[in-house]
């Protein structure tokens, strides 16, 4: 299958510190790819560089076009959606307003009502809370809102930064079942996740990062059985 995302030689610097050092990887259309690694390994930086929140050198090819110089807000229009770490919903805006912001790129061309319907069917809870301020939602509901907001842009590639962070085990299961649904509906997922065991059950392939470099890569099954991965990320 052709890669929907092809990153080569990506380097991200924060001042004099290199958070990501010449990283190359690809995500094929319809795949679920997970990035594993300790805190500070550069996983979040890679997602931010793909969505354009931070600058990087190297190339980022999305659907065959180099989007490295495309501003972040235009990448959304091309089909890249990024659910940031910690959900970052707009607490003082209503659920409706959060979702409408997510649909910004399609609002002028119409069809937002349809997108809203689709998202609210997917997350009926958000319908109940439609006019409530985002900040009054529970953690699980906020995660739904963060997903829903991203879905409003009709993404082809969904970047997810720690989607299960801070959630109860029951909600973690729920989040992964949703991610699986997103995948089945045709979206390509690139996930950064601490919960490596769960992530590897969902993923087709994975990359292991250490100090800003890719140390290992392979199919999810291979990595799941790799003794290094088992010791470092699966708690054995």
């Amino acid at each position, binding site marked *: 299958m052709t890669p929907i995302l092809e990153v080569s030689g990506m380097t991200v610097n924060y001042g004099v510190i290199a958070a990501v050092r010449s990283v190359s990887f690809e995500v094929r259309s319809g795949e679920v790819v997970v990035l594993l690694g300790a805190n500070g390994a550069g996983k979040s930086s890679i997602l931010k560089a793909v*969505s*354009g*929140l931070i600058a990087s050198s190297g190339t980022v090819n999305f659907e065959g076009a180099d989007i490295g110089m495309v*501003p*972040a*807000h*235009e990448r*959304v*229009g091309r089909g890249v*959606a*990024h659910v*940031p770490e910690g959900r*970052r919903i*707009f*607490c*003082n*805006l209503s659920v409706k*307003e959060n979702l*409408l*912001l*997510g649909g*910004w*790129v399609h*609002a002028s061309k119409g069809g937002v009502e349809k997108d809203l319907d689709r998202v609210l069917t997917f997350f009926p809870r958000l319908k109940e809370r439609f006019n409530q301020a985002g900040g009054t939602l529970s953690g699980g509901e906020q995660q739904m809102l963060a997903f829903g*907001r991203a879905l409003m*842009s009709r993404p082809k590639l969904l970047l997810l930064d720690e989607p299960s962070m801070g959630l109860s085990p029951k909600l973690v299961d729920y989040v992964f079942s949703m991610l699986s649904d997103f995948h089945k509906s045709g979206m390509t997922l690139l996930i950064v996740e601490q919960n490596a065991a769960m992530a590897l059950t969902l993923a087709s392939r994975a990359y292991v990062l250490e100090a800003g470099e890719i140390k290992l890569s392979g199919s999810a099954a291979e990595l799941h059985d790799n003794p290094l991965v088992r010791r470092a990320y699966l708690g054995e």
Partner: protein
Amino acid sequence: MIYFFQQALNAAQLGSVYALIALGYTMVYGVLSMINFAHGDFFMVGAFLCFVGVVVLQLSFIPVLLLAMAGVTMLGVATERVAYRPLRNAPKASAIITSLGVGIFLEHFTLGLSPYPKYIPPVLPSFSFNAGGVSVSTFQLATISISFILMLALYLVVNKTRVGLAMRAISADRGIVPLMGVPVDKIIALTFALGSGLGGAAGVMYAMAYPVIDPYIGIIIGWKAFISAVIGGIGNIRGAVLGAYILGTVEIMTAAFLPSTYRDLVAFSLLLILLIFRPHGLLGRAESQKV
């Protein structure tokens, strides 16, 4: 009692001018967390454009108002583009100091063009009518009603439109707004446009009430409007309006019932006392430190 109502009307007039200017401070702070100290001078440019409209071009009131608003809007957008945007990721002090510099530049640029104070003849037929003993002038009526219309329009833009939604989102969490597909630079430019336009309108209102203008009128009026925004809670739009009318009332009532030289003393004391008890202003919220 009639004296009191007369002063209340004066307070509403002064408060309206402060409110229009305070909105510009608070909106820019909302989206950029930056105080645009040149904003008082934007207001001054509005007053001078009023002079240009009335005396040079001999326009009538509404065209003068539109000229001042359009001119100051362009000034605000250009200033943001040239002076502030390049410093978006620089330490906050850089942009604030730059805004002080822009203000001094505007004052002296205007001084260069107009070395002597200018007198602006009445642009509206100037007469007063008697409402139950209270004398209401056409200027007062125009100032209060037009400010009300402009503030209502701003309220609708901020709360009922897509652009307003984007402004509120930027004010809440600018860092992730690009991920929504929102062109942040464009929205910030629009915020400057709206805030500056209101400042331009305030310049016309002020020049109608105090028709002798010089390039330094923006300094003290700008500070007063800034204080209004701080009293209400900087970044909060309703707060800016509330603070402006409070400050206008305090100033007018001080001058009416105490020696008028106490006016600024009382106004600034009010600010200091308020900030001790409500450091975030009346309607402001404590900002949590973002990482």
